[in-house]
């Protein structure tokens, strides 16, 4: 399975709040970041949680976000970042 995004590419995390078992933390939904690295594809945990096979596998990415953009009142340095692992179906081109 080919990765849809490349390292260095700007991405947007979809804002969605579906029910179920989700691995996209609430605080990062709707935020923009940059692909830090492309990881392997893994069985989709949102399906595994309900006893299904999780196939097709979903590509996983590590996405880096600037803390100052994640938290409007962030107290820290401008270079501070947070890296989050996000599955491809949560990402869009920014």
């Amino acid at each position, binding site marked *: 399975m080919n990765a849809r995004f490349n390292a260095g590419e700007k991405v947007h995390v979809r804002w969605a709040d579906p029910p179920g078992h989700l691995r996209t*933390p609430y*605080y990062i939904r709707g935020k923009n970041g940059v692909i830090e690295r492309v*990881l*392997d594809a893994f069985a989709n945990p949102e399906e595994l949680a309900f006893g299904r096979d999780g196939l097709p596998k979903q590509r996983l990415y590590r996405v880096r976000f600037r*803390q100052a953009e994640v938290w409007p009142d962030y*107290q820290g340095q401008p*270079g501070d*970042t*947070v890296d989050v*692992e996000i599955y491809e179906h949560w990402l869009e081109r920014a």
Partner: protein
Amino acid sequence: MHADHDHVHPHRHPPQPDVEDTPSTYYQRLEEAVRELLIAKGIFTGEDIRRTLEIYDSQSPVLGGKVVARAWVDPAYKARLLADGSKAVEELGIPMDTTKLVVVENTPAVHNVIVCTLCSCYPRPVLGLPPDWYKSRNYRSRTVREPRAVLAEFGTQLPDGVDVRVHDSTADMRYLVLPMRPAGTEGMEEAALAELVTRDSMIGVSLPRAAPVTAP
């Protein structure tokens, strides 16, 4: 033995308090029931459970310390560790489980800290069981929100100009911080260096010891 004790006890000693004195909780009873059913159905055996617990007990931050010390003394190993953490720890005889290890390096410009905001994902093969605070809502919610305040509570003050890079282990990766080798340790052997590497320094909430711990 006291002469008076050479007989069948006529009196009762108060029983020593026991961990099982309190009534079992809902989840303890649920776990017991599910475990008994799984064993009865032959999904696994009591021996399988014991063996798994044995594996958990054999994992500890000592293993992570060995990995870090090797990276400090061997630049080629360090390069392999940063490129593919799982493969590099397996070189040292530490098997990773189904998750992949990503090693993140502290530098004079970047300090890394690990958290799992969703639950308690932790690099168990190299650090063992997570400390209770790592699983607390306090640590999980604040590390991502105000990492510098959390680090300060662990006694870690970063110099100006150091960026904090938080890693939220939300899925199938596990993270290990490669701390900077403390100044003044140039002459130390690998085994002695490994003892400077604390669990907390590999989670990223603190720095390694500056010198070996000496008996008081």
